């Protein structure tokens, strides 16, 4: 059960709590953990090339920061955490990634970075839990 666990990770407090829960589960169930960061798409229809380049650089810097954090988690809890990133809509990308890679459980923090916006349009967690092919654990 839950041999493959996918954690949505964006370095927010909610995502860190979700990862800690996933690690506890993984140790208990001997599961593999993958932490996925979904970055927003690069700006469509930009006015300057530099606009796109700067977004790319900033995404690359953030990914490095996430990788370091995940390595620290990995060392601290003595578990392997595979890190990956994709571009796109957060909920859709997590749902598609989980399905394509046959994950058995998706773990998400209750609140990521999308607090205010999420209140209006619905949180990523709502959309993932509605559309995922597997079980979804939302950590408070």
């Amino acid at each position, binding site marked *: 059960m839950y041999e493959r666990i996918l954690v949505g990770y964006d370095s927010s407090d909610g995502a860190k709590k979700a990862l800690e829960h996933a690690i506890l589960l993984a140790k208990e169930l001997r599961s593999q953990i993958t932490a996925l960061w979904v970055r927003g798409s690069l*700006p469509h*229809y930009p*006015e300057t090339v530099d*606009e796109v380049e700067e977004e790319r650089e900033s995404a690359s810097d953030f990914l490095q920061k996430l990788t370091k954090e995940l390595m620290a988690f990995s060392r601290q809890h003595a578990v392997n955490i595979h890190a990956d990133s994709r571009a796109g809509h957060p909920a859709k990308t997590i749902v598609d990634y989980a399905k394509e890679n046959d994950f058995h459980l998706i773990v998400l923090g209750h609140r990521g970075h999308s607090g205010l916006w999420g209140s209006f349009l619905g949180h990523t967690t709502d959309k993932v839990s509605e559309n995922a092919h597997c079980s979804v654990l939302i950590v408070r």
Partner: protein
Amino acid sequence: MLENIWFIAAIWMALAFAASIISIRLGVSVALIEILLGVAAGNFLGLHKTTEWINFLAMLGSGVLTFLAGAEIDPASLKANLRVSFLIGFLSFALPFAGVWLFAQFVLGWQLHQAQIAGIALSTTSVAVVYAVMIEKGLSNTALGKMILAACFITDFGTVLALGILFADFNIWMLVFIVVMLIVLWFMPRWTRAIVLRMGATRVSEPEVKFILFVLFFLGGLATTAKSEAVLPAYLVGLVVAGVFVRDKTLMHRMRSIAFAMFTPFYFLKAGLYVSLPALWTALGVIIVLLLLKIVSKVIGVWPFALAAKMRPREANYTTLLMATGLTFGTISALFGLNNNIIDQTQYTILVTVVILSAIVPTMIAQQFFQPSTQTMEAWGRLWSRSKRTNSRPEHRAQTKETSYV
């Protein structure tokens, strides 16, 4: 209260701020959102007029934006495939320019200068839009990707040149403008490099940014005195300092930060402000026809030559559709026409709407149906190089016939 300069500035900056937030959330460029918010402000919020200082900031926005567009070209990429880039870029400008001009004048019944503005506005392409489309799939660094970007640059150069020449007065001021501009363009790379090297990296007073702005304003002044357009020298200055900017990204970032925070919001909001939704609704048929005409004339100009340049149909379709995009120079050309009373608000609405649609429709079709792989985009470079080498050796011309991608 709304006569108070601070409150007017606050309203415009609030719109710019809202555009930034929406743009971050939607992953769409802030420029496009600013235009759309400008449309909403003009049609629903009663924001109908601009002030002198708003016009001034908007003018700086278009100038600096054009400079940045010129500075974005990688000179090495331009040189690498100069012949094919030049031909594709030139045809991508000339056919839509002539086609739209003639259609607007003889079918829509627009006056000569109005039809010319239509031709210029719809002949454009957009290096940045094309780059953003290709970078998502890692295509921008392939041989074909670089050639397409260089061709887009040539097309935009044609647009800027047409805008700078067609409506100019050919008098003594034009001669002064051309002579001074040529001198400045000749010395600009070494002046810029020297200032960046000696002062650029460490001085908080930003002498290198002020130097570039000084040159842009001065040449803009000469251009407008000669009844030409300030975007022409801005683009050319950008082109000649592009080599310096490739090495020193900091200067590029600083220029863009200043432009995007303070100048371009006023430009794009203003560009949207004059779009009339009732006029748009009435002219919907003309808008669709002009969009189709832009795409079809790009197909007639680019597609056969793309095939002749050893592209497979899929890559030729992709190249043609990307060359049919447009945004920055399209809106600049249309706003130039409106500001100089060449076109009216209905014609402006039609042109800006077609320009915005041309940023979206061709890219969506290209991505959805003709997305090539990085391998075939790279393979084109090898095939084209081999074909050039073969053609340059007369004894092999008749013997070698390349037919497939390897």
